[in-house]
């Protein structure tokens, strides 16, 4: 048995995983990262648009702060999020931005004076303050009250990932590349690391660690058409599910992005609409104002995706061999803007569509994009069931996104979550000893070895590629943007049948090393279980909340469904997960459930909502006239953070108030 041990083991070398690794390495802990691919190739690199943080440097961001970011995030989540976590996040986002600046991210900066922007299809001139010159810029994104999304052109994820990976390299953090974690080593109470397979040599290795952090991203590739990279197959979630103990949270919460190109499913950033791009139908008509007169194209993603689908269902889509689509028109932004701020979009249009988006409209339609669900953790990022198992980023249900994530909050979650949770992971490693139980480890190696032996030497007949394709089609057709009972039941029945067939997988390629068919076969069974947790969760949740939209239950039902779905798979032979629910406590909410601001408010209220509002009013009254916003916040919903993250965030407005005679930003650049 090849055994490698470390203090902090991180699965996944995207932004979230690397940020946790940096946090534990900073504390002097032995840290090791496993990755399917070289770190800089991680899906984080594909994030184009930006990262939300309430810096408030720009004229359209003035007055922004943690409170407004928090409120936007909670509303965006359709009240499905953990408000403590949303608070922790909103407070630390500006810190993460500034830390990343220190690590080399060339954030786009504010230029003082007039600048022309497109708002609501009109050219508008904004005047940026002298004092803001050279500070970090922000663009508009859907569902936010202020322009809060910090960016580097449309390569934000790329810039961030390179800066964070460079930081990890400078600290000497090893990344074991082309290694796939396939099962967690655990005793039912504590996680002790993973069994992983080298994708080049086929060797099985046990990585034993004090803490194990799953940071493997989302599970978008259980869908046929997804903006996700090919590696986002949900294996991280499957690792937790396969323990039979650890829970997954809100797996049915799957986001569709409004504007992926047709047919490739490659994303064009929300920055296209944030910067002023508009959606048009087959007649060239701009239809979003008809549905959402206030927010139009910048309503939150779930809303825009559904409105687009509705509009296409009415026959207003453009016919294509790949089904109907709509148009994204960014021609009004002008060539200069597109070639500097939306350059990746332009490249994608040129290479994949053969069009020039400065002159032509882009064919788009809503496409699977983001996984709000994931490995359920508490606010410190740890699994409540398996000690020593942490999860962060898209892989996790930490749960700051609830049932819908706002654009720009996912990139932010990776580094902010990594910053906060990394500290708790380090604490855990310092407080717990390494336990190397070779018998236990051998048991998990043997199990995986058996699985591989059966696949390579067995007489199975099923083709893993075909099973995966069928699963992806089922998810796309029946567990999509709009859902209903009969289709979800059909999805569950068909997925169960596939899971049964997966017991009879057979391989044509018999190699034990570098065998892509074996890799696929090992994944497909795991992916099917993840897909079933999504479908079963969606079938059981008889309401519509955020991205989870039931045609047969259109109301957001706080009375019965203000809770989080927890899924486990205790019996490995079973064909479905076990679902439980964890209530969200309205009496502890800083922002009690309310109207989200789109369409008609058809919420079925929670009985505690009224009570909580009265209580909040009392707390406010008791604080007297005009209480400081920090005092008010603490009185309503106290939350904690690691002490080094507690200091308040300085903003340009504070600096101006303190030293009006010495405005910042005027020193020679």
């Amino acid at each position: 048995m090849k055994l490698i041990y470390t203090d902090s083991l991180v699965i996944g070398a995207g932004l979230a995983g690397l940020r946790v690794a940096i946090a534990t390495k900073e504390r002097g802990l032995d840290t090791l990262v496993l990755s399917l691919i070289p770190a800089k190739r991680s899906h984080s690199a594909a994030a184009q648009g930006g990262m939300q943080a309430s810096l408030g440097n720009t004229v359209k961001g003035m007055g922004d702060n943690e409170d407004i970011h928090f409120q936007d995030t909670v509303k965006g989540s359709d009240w499905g999020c953990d408000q403590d976590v949303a608070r922790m996040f909103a407070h630390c986002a500006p810190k993460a931005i500034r830390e990343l600046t220190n690590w080399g991210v060339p954030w786009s900066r504010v230029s003082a004076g007039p600048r022309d922007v497109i708002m609501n299809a009109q050219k508008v001139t904004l005047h940026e303050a002298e004092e803001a010159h050279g500070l970090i810029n922000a663009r508009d994104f859907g569902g936010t009250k202020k322009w809060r999304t910090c960016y580097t052109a449309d390569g934000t994820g790329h810039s961030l990932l390179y800066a964070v990976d460079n930081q990890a390299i400078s600290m000497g953090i090893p990344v074991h590349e082309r290694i796939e974690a396939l099962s967690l080593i655990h005793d039912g109470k504590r996680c002790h690391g993973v069994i992983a397979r080298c994708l080049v040599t086929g060797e099985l290795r046990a990585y034993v660690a004090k803490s194990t952090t799953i940071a493997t991203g989302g599970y978008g590739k259980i869908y046929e058409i997804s903006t996700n990279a090919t590696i986002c197959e949900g294996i991280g979630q499957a690792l937790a599910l396969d323990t039979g103990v650890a829970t997954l949270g809100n797996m049915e919460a799957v986001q569709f992005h409004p504007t992926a190109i047709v047919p490739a499913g490659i994303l064009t950033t929300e920055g296209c609409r944030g910067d002023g791009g508009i959606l048009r139908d087959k007649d060239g008509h701009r239809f979003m104002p008809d549905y959402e007169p206030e927010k139009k194209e910048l309503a939150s993603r779930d809303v825009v995706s559904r409105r687009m689908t509705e509009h296409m269902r009415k026959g207003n889509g453009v016919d294509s061999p790949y089904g109907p689509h709509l148009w994204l028109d960014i021609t009004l932004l002008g060539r200069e803007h597109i070639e500097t701020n939306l350059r990746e979009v332009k490249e994608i249009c040129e290479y994949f569509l053969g069009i020039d988006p400065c002159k032509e409209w882009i064919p788009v339609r809503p496409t699977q994009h983001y996984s709000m669900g994931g490995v359920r953790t508490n606010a410190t990022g740890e699994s409540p069931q398996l000690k020593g198992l942490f999860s962060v980023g898209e892989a996790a249900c930490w749960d700051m996104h609830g049932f819908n994530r706002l654009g720009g909050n996912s990139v932010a979650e990776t580094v902010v979550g990594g910053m906060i949770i990394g500290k708790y992971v380090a604490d855990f490693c310092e407080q717990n000893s390494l336990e190397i139980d070779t018998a236990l480890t051998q048991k998990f190696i043997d199990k995986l070895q058996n699985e591989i032996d059966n696949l390579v030497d067995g007489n199975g007949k099923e083709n893993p590629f075909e099973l995966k394709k069928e699963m992806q089609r089922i998810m796309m057709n029946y567990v999509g943007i709009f859902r209903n009972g009969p289709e979800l039941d059909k999805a569950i029945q068909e997925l169960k049948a596939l899971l049964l067939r997966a017991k009879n997988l057979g391989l044509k390629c018999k190699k034990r090393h570098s065998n892509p068919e074996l890799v696929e076969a090992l994944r497909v069974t795991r992916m099917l279980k993840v897909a079933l947790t999504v479908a079963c969760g969606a079938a059981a949740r008889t309401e519509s909340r955020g991205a989870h939209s039931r045609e047969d239950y259109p109301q957001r039902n706080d009375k019965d469904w203000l809770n989080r779905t927890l899924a486990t798979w205790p019996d490995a032979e079973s064909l479905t997960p076990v679902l439980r629910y964890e209530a969200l406590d309205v009496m502890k909410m800083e922002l009690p459930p309310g109207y989200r601001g789109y369409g008609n408010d058809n919420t079925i209220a929670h009985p505690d909502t009224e009570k909580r509002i009265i209580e909040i009013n009392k707390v406010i009254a008791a604080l007297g006239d005009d209480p400081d916003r920090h005092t008010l916040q603490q009185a309503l919903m106290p939350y904690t953070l690691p002490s080094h993250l507690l200091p308040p965030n300085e903003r340009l407005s504070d600096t101006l108030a303190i030293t009006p005679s010495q405005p910042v930003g005027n020193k020679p650049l």
Partner: protein
Amino acid sequence: MSRQISFNIFRYDPQDGQDKPKMERYQLTETPGMTVFIALNQLREQQDTSLQFDFVCRAGICGSCAMVINGFPTLACRTLTANYPDGEITLMPLPGFELIGDLSVNTGKFMRELAERLKLWLHPKPDDQDMHRLENPMAPEEAARIYELERCVECGVCVSACATKQMRDTFVGAVGMMKIARFEMDSRDNRSADDFYHVIGNQDGVFGCMTLLGCQDNCPKDLPHMQQIAYLRRKMASTIL
């Protein structure tokens, strides 16, 4: 009417002691919008499940899938099969990197070693870096200039297209110099031209480049490699004057 297209693909499994490098020919029916990514996946799923290649983002963003297509190194994910009117497509792995198998090469290992060797990360100045306080201003033009050079995706095309690199393994290649240039121009970086001279002021660095333009001609991100190498040469030359 969809046409039949042919793929001639380099096959070799270096871990199999019996295997010999060879070319294998496959055919498939082209579909509208087909890329080499789509084609290779189809070939693997339907004709040969042992075929090795690397794709991650399949959108021209991550740099995983560089290979030599009909003689030119490029990103396979965004190469449309329709670009080849005679329907003959020959795929070879990128030269200059460790071969994992078939079309898969280990660019990741190369890039990590290069980063460690050249210290390709920001070496910040010791001034105020308090993350709770307002960030230091940076000229908007400087931020834009850095981003222009930062767009490198480490695909390895420049290295594979470089004759100097093919002749001298220790040559840092355009990717290394592009990254040095990126940090050299960053006002937050504390290193001087002298510091950079020690890593690239020699035959393995800027003075080894033969200016054959392979890097710039093939770079999928259209990075201005030659301009940066020339710029660094002037900088390095000025340190010894």
